[in-house]
């Protein structure tokens, strides 16, 4: 399975986080919202521009595109 940036994933797809490329501060911020390696994500909205909406740890989180490009995920469905 191909690992790709979260921002490439279509709405409706499910993926598993493989790696997060970011500084220390960003990683802790993402971690506290539930984005860690191994988390399962469901992409709910991805309009191609602007923030995306994903489901992670049972909650809905809006995440900026820049950030979504740094989250490497493996698509599972």
């Amino acid at each position, binding site marked *: 399975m191909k690992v790709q940036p979260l921002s490439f994933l279509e709405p409706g797809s499910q993926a598993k986080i493989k790696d997060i490329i970011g500084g220390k501060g960003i990683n802790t911020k993402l971690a*506290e919202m539930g984005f860690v*390696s191994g988390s399962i994500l469901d992409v709910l909205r991805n309009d191609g521009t602007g*923030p995306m909406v994903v489901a992670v740890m049972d909650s809905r989180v*809006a*995440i900026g595109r820049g950030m979504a490009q740094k989250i490497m995920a493996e698509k599972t469905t």
Partner: protein
Amino acid sequence: MSVTKETKEISTDQVNAQTIALIGNPNAGKTTIFNALTGSRQHVGNWPGVTVEKKEGRLLADSKVHVIDLPGTYSLGAYSEDELIARNYILFENPDVVLDIIDSANIRRNLYLTVQLLEMNTNIVLALNMLDEAEAKGIEIDENTLAKILNVPVIKTIGTKNQGIEKLISSSIQALGQSREPLTVDYGQEIEDEILVLQKAITEHGELAQRYYPRWLAVKILEGEDVILNDIQKYPNIQTIFTLREKAVQHLNQVFAEDIQTIIIEKRYGLIEGVVKQTVKQKKDVQASVSLSDKIDNVVLNKTLGIPIFLLTMWAIFKFTFVIGDPLIGYVEMLFEWFGGIVGAMISNELLASLIVDGIIGGLGSIFVFIPPIFTLFFAISLLEDSGYMSRVAYIVDKFMRSLGLHGKSFIPLLIGFGCNVPAIMATRTLENKKDRMVTILVNPFMSCAARLPVYVLFAGALFPDNAGTVIFSLYILGIVMAIIMAKIFKKFLFPGEAAPFVMELPPYRVPTLKGMLIHMWEKGSSFVRKAGTIIFAVVVLIWVLATLPWGVEYASQDSFIGMFGSAISPVFAPLGFGSWEASAALIFGLLAKEVIVGTLGVIYGVGEEGLAVTITQMWTPLAAYSFMVLTLLYVPCVATIGAIKRETNSWKWTGFTIGYTLALGWIVAFIVYQGGTLLGLG
């Protein structure tokens, strides 16, 4: 830290006082439970050194027990000010019980905070709140097993229905004074070995071990958290610990491919995953199943519908504020005039009557007229927040705000600015990035607050009777445009760099409760009343004094101090179309609170606020009036706002800068308006 003499002398009541601190993720229901625990007896103050509000109350069931509301936070790292406040409170104030409010429908992410609390060796009581929402999602939690695993009391609650609250109270009281061995996170052999080494060194250091719980500190040192590393640097004989840290980091970097902090975070989630597996039963895939909330989002966040819905909502808020707030302003004014009339008739000494009626009652009146528009706006904002729409607003505007170099979350403080810039500037705390926050603070005064409206209403009503509404609207727009331009300039030249990454929870939509909205409205509004109210009151009394002195002059005439002052600076404003001493004096007092401009003009023209419109029609041209309104909008924010800027930026330099640039900008724009208008023959 040693017990000093002072603390020994404090009354026994305070020494024996026990504290329960409430903590939880934003939106987990902390406010609801705090109110259920304390009733209406609560006190709002500030955390030392910062403006974050600190809510404190007494337990209804036992008034000897203090209840402290900590800021809502997702974790106890050091990412934002809120997190640090909550963490420092738990570390250094040692609350007897920490009541951790969990959103049961969101248990994994919420347990992250719990795990951090366990690591700090706190005496936790867990409230599994939002039980109804969890059940509706098909999530079942076995609280007995959870309590056993974590070794803390666990109580299921529904905050809005008062369900489980009694049990929560009795468990918390029971937990007071108890201490138990909480669960520890197992970081795996390699990391645990390093933790042990550091922990031993910390314990041996003595002083450090007194300040911090050794195991927690050891983990933080391994994580390499700056706040902690900077703090311990100040201790003597700290070098051994830093050497140990370096060795540990080197070793762990050889063993693991990822950085240590990431591994530590993952281990915490690993523990949570294990706990959840044993205690939570849920339908196949709760996360992916489409809820009603998701269906609403499909409309509200829709690419084409999202923005029109957002604009409509903003329009509705302002409509609501004016329709409800405006008539109330009239009633408040009438009430104070009536009261002043009665009191004035009762006092025979003319000077005393003037002080009480014009100064004190007039002063109180000038504070109270703000209350209707500010509270109605805050009521509307609370409705947006409690329903869950506010975080969607941040999502919708993020792209636009980013084009200005700002952050989606900057929008909310700007919106609050239309009510009052003081709470608006305080609301910038939700911005984690210092640069985003600074720009949002610096342009906030251009959001035309409720206090400026009376000035517009007066001048536009008097000189543009047929299109007063359009004129007032144009000023709001001008403020927004100026804010946008200045934000772009500041971002480019003063605070370059990307806006902070956008990560924001979209809580499920909820039907807000009236009680909840009233509480939130009160929390925002009362900060205005307390912070601005005292200043405005003092200022109105000061105006009265300056208008009365020197002894014997006619009240507020050109010979009074106000008059002399106004005459001295009036040439500065002549090119803007209003070189009269009256206008200058009014502007000076407007610094103290913009609404005071109306009152001051009323006093100076000697006609009171009722006769003002007529006088203004005679003395002002429409163009000069418009220029005056532009200056009122833009020039130096009122003292209360300046005070808020100083506190939040913690810098006199930026406070002075704000005063300077807003004055310059206001002057220039008003100059262009007046001179341009004159050239076009509009004068």
